[in-house]
């Protein structure tokens, strides 16, 4: 039922623009930019060129494309670079653009058509610059959320760190999945220790973030209550606790020390859980955010 105008902001009010209806595209845009840059940085360290290419494509077309689809006036998107001195969105747009341009330059020599370029994909310049850019791009989405002081559940310094952990975790998983699909099992061997630690970091930082909310302002506590006891609780417990955390942790402990050839199905299951679980977690974070009520009233306490 549509909210009456005299009732607006009388309770802890949810944000809707970045999650409901067309706002879901915004969530997907953040998600795909994060995992694209995540695969990219992970692939850089293990020399998995196909992973670099796929990460770039996911960032550019899925992430970038969904951003455009969400905007009210996408033809004015170029204006988003105009205020890097104060706007986090501006800074993120500039960094993403630089990431895509330099990423294209790095990937190009991999193709025979560009084999005559005077630089190689493993040039020192790219080895130094691209990891930093990848980290900025991974964290850009949640950094944009963390500067919004109006929503205390988002206004946490832990959020960009969580974003980095989830980006690396998803990057290892997707790179593993892709490499298994093209029979490059050695990538799994190189990435599995990174995957174990990134899963541990991801779970630890997620718990820390939620604990922070418990000890935060009333609006943050209200958001946490929605996650753990409210309307979002089933999604949170199944999608996040079970699928994002417990199942991957269980699989990781099961496959410890095994070779890639014997555990393909389990690895693919873990990849799927990581993908679905992280998307669900981001959905929960965006859905649960609440504004403070504007005035004191019985409506605030549900009377």
């Amino acid at each position, binding site marked *: 039922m549509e909210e009456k105008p*005299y009732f607006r902001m009388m309770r802890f009010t949810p944000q809707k623009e970045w999650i409901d209806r067309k706002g879901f595209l915004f969530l997907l845009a953040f998600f795909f930019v994060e995992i694209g840059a995540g695969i990219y940085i992970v692939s850089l360290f293990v020399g998995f060129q196909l992973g670099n290419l796929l990460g770039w494509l996911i960032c550019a077309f899925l992430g970038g494309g969904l951003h455009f689809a969400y905007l009210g006036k996408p033809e004015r998107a170029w204006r988003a670079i105009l205020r890097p001195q104060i706007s986090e969105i501006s800074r993120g747009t500039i960094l993403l653009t630089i990431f895509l341009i330099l990423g294209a330059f790095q990937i190009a020599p991999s193709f025979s058509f560009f084999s005559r370029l005077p630089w190689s994909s493993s040039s020192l310049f790219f080895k130094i610059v691209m990891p930093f850019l990848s980290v900025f791009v991974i964290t850009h989405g949640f950094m944009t959320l963390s500067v919004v*002081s109006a929503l205390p559940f988002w206004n946490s310094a832990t959020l960009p760190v969580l974003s980095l952990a989830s980006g690396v975790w998803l990057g290892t998983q997707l790179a593993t999945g892709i490499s298994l699909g093209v029979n490059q099992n050695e990538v799994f061997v190189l990435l599995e220790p990174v995957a174990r630690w990134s899963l541990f970091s991801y779970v630890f930082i997620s718990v820390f973030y939620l604990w922070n909310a418990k000890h935060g302002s009333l609006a943050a506590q209200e958001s946490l209550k929605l996650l753990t006891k409210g309307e979002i609780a089933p999604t949170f417990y199944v999608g996040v606790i079970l699928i994002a955390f417990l199942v991957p942790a269980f699989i990781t402990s099961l496959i410890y020390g095994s070779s890639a050839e014997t555990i393909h199905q389990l690895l693919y299951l873990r990849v799927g859980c990581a993908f679905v679980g992280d998307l669900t977690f981001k959905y929960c974070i965006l859905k649960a955010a609440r504004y403070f009520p504007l005035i004191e009233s019985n409506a605030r306490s549900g009377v």
Partner: protein
Amino acid sequence: MPRWGMVIDLKKCIGCWSCSISCKQENFLPPGVFFNRVLIGELGRYPSVRKEMYPVICNHCKEAPCVKVCPTGATKQRKDGIVTVDPDECMGCRACLIACPYQMRSFLDHQLEKEYFPGQGLTKLEILGREIKPYQAGTVVKCDMCVERIDQGLSKGLKPGVDREATPACVIGCPTAARVFGDLEDSRSEVAKLIKVRSGTQLHSEFGTDPSIYYIR
């Protein structure tokens, strides 16, 4: 340089919504879009229940979070404190809408297709409004303190808050004179005196936004 602000007397407000209607008329707002609202809060338990009318508009904060997040510069703050949105620069990312702790902005989308009397065609006011204020779908709109009235009034030598022509429509429309408009920086102005004498408060000053709208009881 003046800092334009408003004082709203909660004792005088009767919750008639004249401010909201005046604003809608002045700005030719489409259905469902409000720059002015009157929140009606009930406090206490039976039999000791009291009602409070709380008019809210954009606070034109001195430390406006919407200005800080806007990537295109469409949301600007003038030197006199009024925060405006340039519809020709807005790309519709809605970051300003998210960032506003008072939620006083609106994103224009399907509202522009609605009529006030569905099936009966547009009224003369709506037709006029679509010519004078052609809102753009896909952009964010908000109260601009009737900045055109203020600027035109000043150019004619009128005084905003004193002369009706130069004063925001919601202030003029209030039948109980619950709203007073003026220069917060001028200690001789009516608004400054009211804030001092009757201990004017801001809405959620703990947000650190330093609103230009004050409330007195």
